[in-house]
């Protein structure tokens, strides 16, 4: 009789413990285009592919986290770098889906295009069960990206002035090499040192590789990093000027912006000075 009571209490306790997570799982939904994510399928995928870095609880404390110089995303705090939504808000399901699809340049988060679209959508909805933020808040309204204006030398020059005025150089350096005077002091939300993006070495950005992606990066900011949002400080046309100028800092990446800029006397001198040649190191970085 006594043992029956004990078993009953154990069942009740287990049911109570399971309630919050199952209730959360029922509340959370995820939709990417026409795809509906499934929590159970996403959970199986997570515990096959993701837990090693992101941890069993999704808190970014996987068994490999101590060995990574950029810590894995903490899904419990639900702070995401790459969003189409304003700073401080939750990303859209598409944003999370795109991050899984794209991976994160210069980190150990790879691109997961080997997973089907449905599997990635399943992962999105499971990730949303790992934080209570998704049940309390809605995703932010995506920042509108206006049509890209025609590329002009004047636009690039205006972008260059903005780069100085907004003091981007303090972190990114005058040549965009990520070596500005503040660079060495920067830390992310995990109190880990973080280096500003090096335009001269990179061809891709953390949150994509198109001009639209670059536009969104400084209009939404990268939450959890020192990169703030400039959405309320600059106008859309100014943001596009900045995009065009930043492209010219990618001196190893062929782009229309770089070609136009090199066609001017001022641009040709700057780009020539920025290009450094030497013995290949095997890293793939060309300066």
């Amino acid at each position: 009789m006594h043992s029956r009571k004990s078993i009953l209490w154990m069942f009740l306790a287990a049911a109570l413990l399971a309630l919050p997570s199952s209730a959360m799982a029922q509340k959370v939904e995820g939709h990417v285009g026409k795809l509906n994510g499934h929590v159970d399928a996403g959970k199986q995928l997570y515990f096959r592919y993701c837990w090693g870095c992101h941890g069993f609880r999704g808190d970014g404390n996987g068994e490999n986290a101590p060995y990574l110089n950029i810590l894995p995303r903490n899904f419990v705090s639900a702070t995401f770098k790459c969003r189409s939504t304003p700073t401080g808000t939750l990303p859209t399901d598409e944003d999370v889906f795109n991050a899984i699809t794209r991976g994160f340049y210069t980190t150990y988060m790879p691109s997961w295009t080997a997973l089907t679209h449905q599997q990635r959508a399943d992962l999105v909805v499971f990730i949303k069960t790992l934080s209570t933020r998704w049940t309390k808040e809605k995703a932010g309204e995506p920042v509108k990206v206006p049509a890209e204006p025609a590329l002009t030398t004047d636009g690039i020059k205006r972008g260059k002035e903005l780069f100085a005025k907004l003091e981007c150089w303090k972190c990114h350096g005058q040549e965009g090499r990520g070596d500005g005077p503040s660079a060495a002091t920067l830390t992310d939300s995990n109190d880990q040192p973080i280096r500003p993006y090096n335009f001269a070495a990179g061809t891709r950005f953390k949150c994509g590789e198109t001009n639209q992606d670059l536009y969104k990066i400084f209009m939404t900011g990268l939450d959890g990093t020192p990169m703030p949002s400039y959405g309320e400080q600059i106008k859309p046309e100014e943001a596009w000027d900045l995009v065009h100028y930043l492209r010219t800092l990618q001196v190893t990446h062929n782009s229309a912006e770089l070609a136009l800029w090199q066609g001017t006397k001022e641009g040709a001198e700057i780009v020539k000075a920025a290009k450094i040649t030497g013995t290949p190191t095997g890293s793939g970085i060309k300066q």
Partner: protein
Amino acid sequence: MLQEVLKLKKHRVAAAAFIAVYGWLFLSIAVPSASALPIPKGNVHAIPAFARKYGMPCSSCHEAWPKLSPFGQQFKDNGYQMGNEKDAPIYQNPSYWPVSFRITPHWHRESVDHADITNPLPTGATTEGRLTTHGFDVGGLDILTAGTLAKNISFLLVPAAENDGSFHFEAANVRFSNLLGSSWLNIKAGKFELDNIISEKRILGLSNNGGFYQMYHFQPVGEDTAMFTFGLGDNQFGAELSGHSKNDYTRFSAALLSSNDGTENLPNGHGYDTFVTLSQAFEAGSLGLQRVGAFAYVGRAPTYTVGGELGTDGLGQKSFYRAGFNGLWYIKKFDVMTQYLHGLDNALLGTATPSYNPLPAGAHSPTWNAGLIEPHYNLNPQFILIGRYELIRMSRQALDTNAGNLGDIDAGTVGFRYYPFISSRAGFAFHNEFSVVRQRGVSTSGRDLTSSSVFLGLDFIF
């Protein structure tokens, strides 16, 4: 007294053997887990050095190691790179050394019906009978070293030792990836596995009978395998051009190979073979990623050799081919690998006739068809059930006098692997397997030869 002691000792030894064998059985079955097969015919690839480099669990690249997942296949096709500008060795801790090893201590039982048994008595008469052996053993050792030398330059080097200690290079190659910035242009040279989507190097079988694909090594009865040995599952020497779409859904390869079946020092002389593959993956809703492919190997082999101490050359070269198509089908946790293969050997190869001699009367180029169906149920990353059935049917014998079904094969394997832990540092699996093969009419008296293997293994890799 002495007899009493010996009797007691005998009982103790028997008891110890009983406990050891059945304790193992209990561990590997009731724990619950698996067994692995005896001596792998080829080296099997799963490389914890990659897991350690990228901090990912085995289950990322392997559905159940060594079987690759689509993500693992993409990583391999990318030249062992994730593509995040972190692949070059300069980004690793200087102490990182990309070396892994794998070996499988095991208990196995082998049985053959209608085997030749020579009577040890002075008569020396040979009769047919059942031959059964069993005991503890160890498989061959694989030392797997692989990684990137620089961005887009990768290597694979697999020194391997058989379980008798003999040593050879199972694989040794360098790959240049993403040439001209395109994933469609990759070149590899050295000794490497043929790029078929059903890989014998990642087979989920380890026993003497089930540790390889029958269809990859089949040669018709009557061929001189000392002169002409070929295995589609064998690593080959050559150069390979390959390419794939960014998401790896579409992939192709074309290889130019030395006609030596991966044997060093050009024992067959100067011939060249070619191997081409093409495969396409497609999404099927929530079922998973499906893939279909085709392959063809066209080769030449000598019918006789000339030379001596200074080397040999294979002459009278005649052609052979293996061609077929395959598929990887996923229904959530259940998946099936299917493959069809058609083979043809030139009549001179099929009858072991040097080309300077006339063909025997009634000689033909032997042809055959082979099929494979291999289902798996991947309950979770820690447990996989394995099944396999292969059949090979001769469609034309090399000689009219041969029975129509001479050499036909039916082979079946069942087993499971249990991985007690999943980690990014090392791998371990209990491997249990039973495999049986029947080949028609190949015993000395012309009866069917049936062999079976039971394998209980501790498969570990670090």
